[in-house]
Every structure is written in C-alpha cells, then in structure tokens.
C-alpha cells in the first residue's frame, strides 16, 4: 500500500515536471529570441544567443511609442479589474443568497455577453464609443472590456460564495451586523480565494484582448498589443523587438499572479467554521 502510494506520488511529480517543461519551452524560445540579433533569429537554430544583445530591449525602453503602450495597457486593465470586481461582488452575493424575479435569466444573459463573436461587433462598438466621446480614452477600453469581464467575475465569485454556508450570514445578522459591515469584515475574508482568482482572470482577459482594444484606440490610449502588430518594417519582420516586447508583456501579469497566489493556494478556511 505504501509502495503504491509512493509510486503514485512519483508519477504525479514526473507528470508535473513534464508539463512544466512543455509550458516553459515556447516562452524560453521567445526569451532566447529577444536576446538575438534579427539575422541570427532567421538564419540559424541556436539554443543560446550566439552574440548576446540587449538592443531590442533598449529600443522598447527608449521609444515612447513602445513604452507608452505598456503604460496605456496597465491603466485601462487596472481600471477594468477594479470596476469589474466592485460591481460583481454585490451581484454575486445576491445570486448566491436570494431568489428574485428573473434571477436565472439575468445570470444566463450575463454569460451570453461572453459569446458574441467579436469581428462584426467591432463596427457598432466603434460607432457607439465615437458617439459618446470615449474613443481613444482609457476609460473607453476599460468600459468595453467590462462586457466580457463582469459576467466572468460574477460567475466565479458566485461559485465561491455558494460554498460558504448561509448560517454564517444569518448568525451575523442576528448578532446585529449591518449588511455592509458583515460583507466587508466577515464575508469578504472568507471568499478571498475567489476574489483573487476573479481579479486575476479579469486582469488577464483585459490584458491580452486585442481586437476591441485596437479598434477603440488610436494614439492616446493605444495598448501594447496593438503596438506589437506593427513591427513589420521595410527589412521584413522585426522578430527581435517583437520577442522582447512579448517577454515584457508577461512581466506585469507575473507580478499580479505572484500577489494573488496565496489567495488561490490557501483556499478559504471553511474547515474551521
């Protein structure tokens, strides 16, 4: 029995390591490319840059059209994540705790907003945002991304909230807690994991979305993903700068996941309640 358990543990470890290698290799290849000259990238296969260069990174950090892309992206992504979580928290609580007229319909309607194929919807979005004067603003992109992030946040949070027994709410109300005080001091800490996961997904989907962000911006709020589509120069594709920019797009998200990892890893302390 113990042998079988140990073998199973070894099996899981080997599987995990194999997957991690698979996960990292393409990213390693991008990192590798970002330190090579363009000639080396397109001419030879090398596991390690033959002549190591930081030129591509220098291009990005010294050219405003490049680094402002990162700043713009971060501004609208942060705005979007904060708005999404703020409006989704009370709604998810309502869905997980009460029945009310149209609850199931509204919940499903929210989800359907994630199901609209973007290509043709771009034009009406463009017209709408031009009309209300939000074209090329950070707020405009943040609002547009709410369409797919808010439903997701509500959905994830509702799942986590439904896992918390209702007796907790009832006890708190009996003890004389008001709703806001109960929600902020007792309930929120219990679903930290859910908030962490939801915030991470909102950040991620907003960060990597290309079509809407590119359509709704031109100069002032132009995101990094749109800047990256324009690396084709006279001498062909600028692979090195593209790779360096790609490496840099992972960094902010990496920091975010580092901060929420505890929420994801700890789960919520239901066992102790």
């Amino acid at each position, binding site marked *: 029995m113990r042998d079988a358990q140990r073998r*199973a543990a070894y099996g899981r470890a080997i*599987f995990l390591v194999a997957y*991690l290698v698979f*996960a*990292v290799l*393409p*990213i390693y*290849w*991008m990192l590798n*490319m970002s330190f090579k000259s363009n000639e080396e*990238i*397109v001419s*030879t*296969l090398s596991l390690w840059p033959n002549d190591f260069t930081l030129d591509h990174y220098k291009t990005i950090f010294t050219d405003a059209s490049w680094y402002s892309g990162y700043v713009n992206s971060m501004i609208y992504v942060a705005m979007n994540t904060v708005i999404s979580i703020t409006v989704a928290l*009370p*709604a998810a609580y*309502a869905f997980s*705790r*009460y*029945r*009310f007229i149209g609850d199931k319909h509204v919940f499903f309607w*929210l*989800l*359907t*907003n*994630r*199901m*609209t*194929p*973007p*290509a*043709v*919807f771009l*034009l*009406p979005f463009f017209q709408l945002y031009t009309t209300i004067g939000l074209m090329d603003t950070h707020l405009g992109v943040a*609002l547009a991304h709410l369409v797919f992030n*808010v439903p997701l946040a509500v959905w*994830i949070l509702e*799942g*986590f909230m*439904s*896992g918390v027994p209702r007796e907790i709410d009832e006890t708190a109300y009996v003890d004389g807690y008001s709703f806001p005080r109960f929600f902020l001091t007792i309930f929120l800490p219990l679903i930290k*994991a*859910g908030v962490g*996961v939801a915030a*991470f997904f909102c950040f*991620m989907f907003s*960060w990597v979305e*290309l079509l809407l962000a590119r359509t709704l911006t031109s100069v002032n709020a132009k995101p990094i*993903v749109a800047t*990256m589509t324009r690396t084709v120069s006279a001498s062909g594709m600028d*692979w090195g700068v593209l790779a360096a920019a*790609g490496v840099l*797009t992972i960094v902010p*998200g*990496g920091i975010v996941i*580092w901060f929420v*990892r*505890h929420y994801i890893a700890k789960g*919520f302390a239901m066992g102790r309640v």
Partner: protein
Amino acid sequence: MSTLKPVNQKAWLLVIPVVLCVAFSAILPLMTIVNYSVQDIISPERRVFVGTEWFRTVLRDGELHDALLRQLGFSLAVLAVEIPLGILLALSMPAKGWKASAVLVVIALSLLIPWNVVGTIWQIFGRTDIGLLGAALAGLGFDYNYTGSAVDAWVTVLVMDVWHWTPLVALLCYAGLRAIPDAYYQAAQIDGASRLAVFRYIQLPKLRGVLMIAVLLRFMDSFMIYTEPFVLTGGGPGNATTFLSQYLTQKAVGQFDLGPAAAFSIVYFLIILLMCFVLYNWMQRAGTAGSAGSEDMPHA
C-alpha cells in the same frame, strides 16, 4: 445544505450595477447588428430592407457549413484534451510551500501572453529551420511542416491551444480543490477509501462548479478562436484551419458584405448559445447525479 434560498426582491438592488455596466456596451451593438442583418447596405446613405434574405443565404452557404464542422471538431478536441489534462495537473500541483507558488506562477505564464504574440511564438517555434519544436520533430524523423500539411497545421493549432489554455482549467480546478475542507479527506481516510474513490466521491463533486466554468469558458472561447490561428497559419493550408471567426472576418472585412456578415454573426451567436445551454444543463444533471452518489458514501 440544500434548503431553498429565500425570496428577496431587494436583491435586485445589488444586481443593478452589473446589469447597467454590461448593458451599456452590449445592448446597442447587438441592436445595430440585428439592424444590419435585415438590410442591404449599399452605402451609408442607401439601405434597403431585405427581410430574412441574408439569413437564408447564410444557412445555405456550403463553405460556412464546412467551417462550422471544422470549428465543432476543433472545439470538441480542445475540451477532450484540456479538461482532463487540467484536472490531472491541478491534482498533481503541490498544495503549499514555495513549490506551490513557483508552479502557480509558471503555469499561469502562458495565459498572460497577448494572443497575437502566442501565434507569433508558435510560428517561429514550429519552423523546422529555426524553431525548437520543428527542428526537434524533424530531427526525430517526422516529416513535419505546419505550412504545407493540413494535418500538421491542425495539430499545431490544437497543441498551441492546449499549451495556451490548459492552465486556465488547471487554475480553476486548483482553487476548487483547495476549498475542500480537510475533514472530508480525514473521513475518507478512516473509511479506507482508495485514491480513485476520493477523486470520484469527494473531489469531483466539489469541483463541479469550477469545472462548469472551465468547460463553458473553454467551449465558447475556442469556438470564437481567431487571433492565434490567424497569425500562425492564416487559416491554411487551404482551409484546414479556417475556423468560423476567420471565415466571418473574411466575409465582413474582406468583402464588405455587412448585411450577410451581421446575419452570420447572429447565427454564430445562436449556435454558441445553444451549445452552452445544452452543455450547462447536461453538466448540471450529471453534477446532481454525482453529488447524490457522494451522499451514498458510507460514513464512519
């Protein structure tokens, strides 16, 4: 636990902000699309009402049927690979300590890369002359060429999607697993339950909620996949990797057929809606059957 939730109409007050936020960007564009779909737009000033003509055209379009079949095959393959792999991955990930943190961060990396960059990375990665994957496959004696062979292209897009999105399933399941109280595992240990039984009667029922999110998200997102295959293969060779979104974009942007493209969008949307509805109800039923099973589990 399963007592009915109380009825409370005031709960609407908590939902209104969400409805406003989403409706702001959802209702008007949808209405515009419906408007386009029943008109022939010759120029911005000249429009003719054509009724259901575009819908009939779209439904009879043979190329569309092919694209739809390719899309269904691709999405089902995505689910068949990514869901089991994601669950397995979540079960294999360490529960705590620095290893757990490190694994979480590494696993999440692929999700954070913009979609056009994902396509670009794999475009290079898969080339036999300058890419690691292509060179390795060629070195092993495979005649691998994702730009020439339809099968290779399809498999490359699938592997890219697995690489890109399995972490989403794994992260959701991992968070779900961490939410299971230790008491459940202790009870199972006392009962002498096998690992498989623990998975079947404790972990799987508790993962139902997150798995539902994972399956539906992966289904709808893979059904609308556009940027990655567009960058990687451009839909080729031939039409092998031209999925629905790309076919739609060719119609809308390439030929400026706004009316038919809008009708197509609506049909597309309805297909996703229908599939999600079926999946949702099926999983809900399977889920209740599963948790009923867990109640049968002999407790000490």
